[in-house]
């Protein structure tokens, strides 16, 4: 029986690894569809950004209460991995609490510490669930934000319920375990009562030893299978941010927020135009200016899309969105990810190669009206807790509309014309540019 459990556990573990690996490879290959961009300079600064923003959760503490709750879930997840290691070892080797003999009396403190974390995660998740479902925080409401209806709404709640169940499983498992220890069951290593779960022991008083063992095993399997399922689920979910927050902050832009990326492919053409360079026969005209689809964006833009957890702080700060316009930076990120997921499915169905499907990021996912509404104020960039840059994507899509499709609002065309002929966005003669000084000279 025990051997059978071990075989089952090892087979399950291998399957999970395989499934997660397959999903991760697919995500990686869709990210790599993006254009190359060097984000490896200044490793020291990058490392410290990652330590502050991802490990230290600096931006989450902009809102202290939420920061503390989020930190509880985060630290719980990281440290509980040590306990998961024990569980996995027990599963593979058919042992029970394999760390207990080696750690001796320290073991009960260690598990007690994990129980504090588990309780913290539980509490935070319950509060978050209430915030999403009952308090109706504005930015999570599908009535106010069209991108939040359906799956994103369910996804946000599912994961919280998931975590609550996982934490209840581990705490009740520990309680049943303690009761079995008190009964002197030889399989259950004597450790003493645990910090939080001891209060759950009354739930198990009067249970038959067999029933207790069955419950303990049930909770053990529920917990570990839950974690396995969670590992797969998060690759399909906005919760991928728990992994990607780290590389995403490491590779974040280090230049001032106001700096727009240069288009070197234009520079040589301009140099020829103004007579700084001779026409070069080798100069290659790029097949497209700006971004029409995800493949035209950089890999970092695409990693941003997978890192977005749809918290909506960007949208909440966006002046266009605040004043009722269609633009929502969160939707820009979600649309980019949706497009990537579609491309990924396409690749999977066609042996790893993307077969054109007549769809594009701009037009089929993101509307022209959305990208035209952006004031490039950087509020969305400022707000993102994991340093996502929605503005960069918006501006690249705009370039495509203007430069490739030559589709601009009439008044912008006027402005361009004025700039070309008068070197000013307004229709004034360049010769009048210095007239202001007449008043004081």
């Amino acid at each position, binding site marked *: 029986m025990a051997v059978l459990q071990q075989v089952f556990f090892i087979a399950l573990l291998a399957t999970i690894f395989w499934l997660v690996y397959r999903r991760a490879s697919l995500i990686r290959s869709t990210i790599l569809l993006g254009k190359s961009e060097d984000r490896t300079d200044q490793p020291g600064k990058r490392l410290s950004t990652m330590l502050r923003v991802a490990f230290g959760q600096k931006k989450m503490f902009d809102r202290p209460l939420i920061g503390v709750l989020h930190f509880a879930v985060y630290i719980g997840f990281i440290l509980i991995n040590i306990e998961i290691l024990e569980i996995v070892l027990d599963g593979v080797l058919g042992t029970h609490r394999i760390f207990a003999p080696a750690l001796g009396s320290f073991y009960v403190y260690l598990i007690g510490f994990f129980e504090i974390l588990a309780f913290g995660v539980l509490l935070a998740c319950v509060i978050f669930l209430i915030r999403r479902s009952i308090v109706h925080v504005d930015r999570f409401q599908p009535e106010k934000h069209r991108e939040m209806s359906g799956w994103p709404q369910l996804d946000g709640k599912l994961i919280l319920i998931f975590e609550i169940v996982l934490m209840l499983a581990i705490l009740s498992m520990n309680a049943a375990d303690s009761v079995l220890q008190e009964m002197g069951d030889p399989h259950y290593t004597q450790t003493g009562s645990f910090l939080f779960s001891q209060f759950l022991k009354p739930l198990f008083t009067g249970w038959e030893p067999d029933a207790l063992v069955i419950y303990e095993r049930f909770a053990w399997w529920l917990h570990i299978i839950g974690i396995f399922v969670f590992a797969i689920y998060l690759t399909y979910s906005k919760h991928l941010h728990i992994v990607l927050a780290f590389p995403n902050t490491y590779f974040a832009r280090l230049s001032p927020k106001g700096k727009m990326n240069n288009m070197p492919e234009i520079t040589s053409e301009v140099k020829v135009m103004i007579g700084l360079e001779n026409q070069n026969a080798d100069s290659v005209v790029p097949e497209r200016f700006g971004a029409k689809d995800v493949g035209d964006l950089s890999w970092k833009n695409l990693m941003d899309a997978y890192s977005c957890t749809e918290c909506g702080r960007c949208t909440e700060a966006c002046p266009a969105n605040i004043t009722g316009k269609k633009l929502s930076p969160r939707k820009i990120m979600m649309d980019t990810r949706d497009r990537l997921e579609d491309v990924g499915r396409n690749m999977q169905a066609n042996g790893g190669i993307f077969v054109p499907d007549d769809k594009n990021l701009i037009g089929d996912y993101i509307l022209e009206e959305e990208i035209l509404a952006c004031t490039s104020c950087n509020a969305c960039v400022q707000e993102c807790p994991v340093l996502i840059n929605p503005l960069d994507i918006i501006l690249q899509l705009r370039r495509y509309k203007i430069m490739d499709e030559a589709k601009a609002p009439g008044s912008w065309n006027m402005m361009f014309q004025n700039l070309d002929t008068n070197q000013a966005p307004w229709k004034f003669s360049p010769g009048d*540019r210095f007239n202001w000084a007449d008043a004081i000279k």
Partner: protein
Amino acid sequence: MEENSYKVPTMAEMAAENETPEVLFWVGCAGSFDDRYKKVTVAFVKILNKAKVKFAVLGTEESCTGDPARRAGNEFTFQMLAMSNIQVLDMYGVKKIVTACPHCFNTLKNEYPELGGNYEVLHHSEYLQQLIDEGRVRPENGETFKGKKVTFHDSCYLGRANDIYEAPRHVLEALDADLFEMKRSKVKGLCCGAGGGQMFKEPEKGNKDINIERIEEALATGADTIAVACPFCMIMMTDGLKNKEKEDSVRIYDIAELVAKANGL
């Protein structure tokens, strides 16, 4: 100082006399053509004169930096303008530039280097702060701002884009005014609605225009003076104020105008 005694030398004039200015004052399109913002240009020139700064302007040799073209998606027009500006700046051997426009400031400072134009670029808020700190300009002989309620509207291209929040506030504090912050300020500041090329087109459909939302926030502070440090913000906030029919009780000034007033210029 007599009205007609202010000097506005051009780079061409300076070059003809074999002189180099300490700093180039980049006026910008709004500073050159917009009737309201021309007054800011004049105020800043008066301050430069008063502080005995050896400066020059490009005059008719200046062109738009290209910021609105680039942000509206027209990279070609941007680079055409940028390259010819860089040619002019380099021809005169310009090292240091000061400008009152955060959009010009951002483009000159952050975007010209990649096209070969490398200069030390300052926004006039930083420059004014320096002049005040050095004692070259001090509030005297003019209007007193003691006890006046002032609120400062952060420009995105000065603040979030370039992390300059304190310099304009230091300038206002030097005037002894009482500074009241809006609900959204500094990194959380709300855009005036004009950046990213929006100045040159109608806004997209929504419930409200952005400048109206922002002027409501500014008025909620109870300030009678709204200080700005950007021509776009000046235009948008002034429109908002007119919309609220408050132009008689509340005034909008650029920080350079306030410094000039304090100095009786």
